[in-house]
């Protein structure tokens, strides 16, 4: 193969940035901090591009390419190395992460400029990049898991970035804990893998998996592994039942929501499932579970999205539902479609969040859409870019979202029309609430009071130039990423035309399901395209009617729906249910039994008694230490006699 690609540089560069900023940032200027952060993340992006160039120009495609860095665990036959693995899948992820990450870095420079702990933010951000890239490039599950946990940590730190704010801190904790639940499943899955394959290395594991026949008849070992991995994925990618952390995660700064909780980290689950597709393909039951979970999540989250009024919450739920789409794709075996949607979603959802950030920035920290409106005249660029993104997510051709979503729906139909039906409904809802968001924010006239400082404080960061009466466009440094992302979400879908993306990823997902698409006639596919477009248009129309032409209708409808509306508004009371089902018993139990029962009564008492006993004994024994030299000598002599006797006994025994 060609000479080394030095993949290790890509993760290490952001780490270096994080280290420098973390250790020196406190005393260096904002400019220096942002320079460091940008340079290192940009370098990572550049190197990623270089790698792509090398791969593309290589005469014989060097993929999959493995790079051994250092060995880490060597226990018996089981070895885990710091080694990196690059194939088409990780290549796509690599580009997405570095690209979007870099853009969001740039954006953050403007967005976080006034934050007191500016350097901390970029340290965390670079740290996140490092872990995310490790996750992507790992050549074995364990290293992947390190990245997995690392991004969890980074997300925890960034959600709780404004840790002085109670809600932020608790949101961070919530995210962390919920993720732990998922990771638990993931870990057990890994243990199972180790037990059966004595390895976590992708190539080795998959090499052993390939010959195994599909467990169609009965759920076997691979099913178990698949389900466990799915649990992990649910945690990380916010699927039912573990999605609850993602909406709260919006407490973090908006760029974080864009980068971590929309574009990259939350898709790690999808990536992981796609990465271990061989296992899933041989475990149809697990695959079905994936599909069902994805579908339900998509619908469920979308419905919640309708009622939310916090602009970021809406986006959060839409993220959850889009992730549901991806899992649906994976579930029906259309991994490449899932990854495709992952990529496009990274573009337009990142763009949406950044736009939302720009809006929030514009109105001075206000997040409630009811206090917005008519902003298009104030912030035209943001309006334009967000419009593009909305079209993209709603699935209007030729925007990116259309291609990927359509692909997914088509594949879903091929697998099972039910999926397709739900998918279409979800698509309708999606386009509805997205346009709702768009109209509520930009259309009509401005409903918010002239921006006031408290608004910022609730948001935790104070605004650049206070005392302005009206919303204002964001600085260029924030707009440029918006535009780039807008272009991407406009054209990003084109790479999928004619299954080019499929063929690109074909070496990875060389499975039977891939070719099914060609089996069915193209004509049907076009028909389905039409349907989904029509649905999207329908959603647009409904949103236009409700929020532009007849703004009084929504309240009526809400009133008529009554309790159901309440339920949806309160997110189906899922948080409350969880609280009563799991949290409260846990807290009670650990307080009563673990703390007061075991810790106090058993552990502490035993320790105290041991100490007390030791004191009593030593009080007696202390008398032995009379300080008289000769008595010591006496003890020694006696002891020597004993030793001699013992040794002689040994000698005689032989």
């Amino acid at each position, binding site marked *: 193969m060609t000479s080394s690609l030095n993949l290790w540089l890509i993760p290490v560069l952001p780490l270096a940035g994080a280290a420098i900023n973390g250790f020196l940032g406190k005393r260096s200027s904002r400019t220096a901090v942002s320079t460091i952060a940008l340079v290192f993340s940009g370098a990572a992006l550049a190197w990623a591009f270089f790698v792509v160039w090398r791969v593309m120009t290589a005469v014989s495609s060097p993929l999959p390419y493995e790079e051994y860095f250092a060995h880490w665990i060597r226990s018996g036959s089981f070895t885990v190395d710091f080694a990196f693995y690059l194939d088409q899948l990780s290549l796509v992820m690599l580009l997405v992460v570095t690209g979007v990450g870099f853009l969001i870095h740039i954006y953050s420079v403007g967005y976080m400029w006034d934050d007191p702990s500016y350097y901390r933010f970029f340290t965390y951000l670079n740290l996140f990049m490092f872990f995310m890239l490790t996750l992507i490039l790992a050549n074995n599950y364990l290293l992947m898991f390190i990245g997995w946990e690392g991004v969890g940590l980074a997300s925890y730190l960034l959600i709780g970035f404004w840790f002085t704010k109670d809600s932020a801190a608790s949101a961070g904790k919530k995210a962390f804990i919920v993720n732990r639940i998922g990771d638990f499943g993931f870990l057990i899955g890994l243990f199972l893998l180790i037990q059966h394959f004595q390895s976590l290395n992708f190539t080795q594991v998959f090499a052993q998996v390939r010959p195994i026949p599909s467990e169609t008849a009965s759920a076997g070992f691979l099913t178990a592994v698949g389900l466990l991995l799915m649990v992990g994925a649910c945690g990380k990618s916010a699927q039912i039942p573990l999605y609850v952390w993602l909406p709260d995660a919006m407490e973090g700064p908006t760029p974080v929501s864009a980068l971590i909780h929309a574009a990259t980290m939350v898709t790690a689950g999808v990536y992981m499932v796609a990465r271990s597709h061989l296992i899933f393909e041989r475990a149809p039951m697990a695959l079905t579970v994936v599909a069902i979970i994805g579908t339900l999540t998509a619908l469920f989250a979308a419905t919640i999205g309708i009622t939310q009024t916090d602009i970021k919450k809406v986006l959060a739920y839409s993220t959850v539902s889009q992730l549901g789409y991806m899992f649906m794709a994976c579930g029906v075996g259309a991994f490449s479609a899932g990854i495709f949607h992952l990529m496009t979603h990274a573009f337009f959802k990142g763009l949406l969040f950044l736009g939302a950030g720009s809006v929030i920035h514009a109105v001075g920290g206000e997040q409630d859409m009811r206090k917005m409106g008519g902003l298009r005249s104030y912030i035209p660029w943001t309006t334009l870019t967000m419009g593009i993104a909305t079209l993209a997510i709603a699935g209007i051709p030729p925007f990116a979202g259309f291609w990927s979503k359509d692909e997914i729906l088509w594949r879903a139909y091929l697998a099972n029309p039910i999926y397709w039906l739900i998918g279409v409904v979800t698509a309708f809802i999606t386009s509805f609430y997205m346009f709702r968001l768009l109209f509520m924010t930009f259309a009509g006239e401005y409903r918010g009071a002239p921006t006031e400082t408290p608004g910022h404080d609730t948001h935790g960061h104070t605004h650049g130039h206070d005392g302005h009466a009206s919303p204002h466009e964001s600085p260029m440094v924030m707009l440029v990423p918006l535009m780039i992302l807008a272009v991407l979400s406009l054209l990003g879908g084109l790479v999928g035309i004619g299954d080019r993306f499929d063929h690109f990823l074909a070496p990875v997902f060389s499975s039977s399901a891939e070719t099914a698409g060609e089996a069915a006639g193209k004509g049907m596919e076009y028909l389905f395209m039409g349907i989904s477009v029509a649905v999207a248009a329908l959603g647009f129309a409904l949103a236009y009617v409700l929020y532009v032409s007849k703004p009084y209708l929504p309240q009526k409808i809400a009133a008529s729906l009554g309790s159901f509306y309440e339920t949806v508004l309160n997110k189906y009371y899922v948080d409350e249910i969880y609280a009563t089902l799991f949290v409260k018993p846990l807290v009670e139990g650990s307080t009563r039994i673990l703390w007061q029962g075991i810790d106090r009564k058993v552990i502490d008492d035993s320790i105290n008694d041991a100490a007390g006993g030791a004191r009593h004994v030593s009080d007696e024994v202390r008398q032995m230490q*009379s300080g*008289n030299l*000769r*008595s010591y*000598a*006496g*003890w*020694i*002599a*006696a*002891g*020597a*006699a*004993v030793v*001699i*006797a013992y040794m*002689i006994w040994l*000698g005689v025994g032989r």
Partner: protein
Amino acid sequence: MISVHLILFLTFGTVAAAGAINLLAQTHPINSALSLIAVMAALAGEYLLLGAEFVAAVQVIVYAGAIMVLFVFVIMLLNAGVEEHTKGSRVAVLFGIPGMLIGSVLLAWVMLRHSGTEAVPAGALPGAPKMIGPLLFHEFLLPFEITSILILVAIMGAVVLASKPPTAPAPPREGN
């Protein structure tokens, strides 16, 4: 048959044992010291019997000539008198003496149980300086160096310990 070797051994051995006993019997440290010197001289004789002439010489020079002189010197310096009989520690009597007796009896039993098996000829091996030297400076170089460091440290420690502590100025006396 009683060889000259055995006779000499017994003679020196008797002297050594007698000296050791005398060391215990004497109440005045200087007598104990002298009897110890006798023991060492006798041991030097034993070493000669065993052919370890260099060891014998060093035994006389170092032990009898230097270490014991040091002892005598200290006895004279502190003008140590006959030791007074304070009440001893019960432990030493109750455990120490019996322990010592048991141990030595056991050892003697074991040794004599294997006695006569191997006989050591007179001048068994010539421990000439010419042979000791290479040993000290090749096979046992590291221990040798370490002991040299040890003795150096000991010298410094002795100097520090025995040097007069800085006496604090006496407090001014009130009254006449």
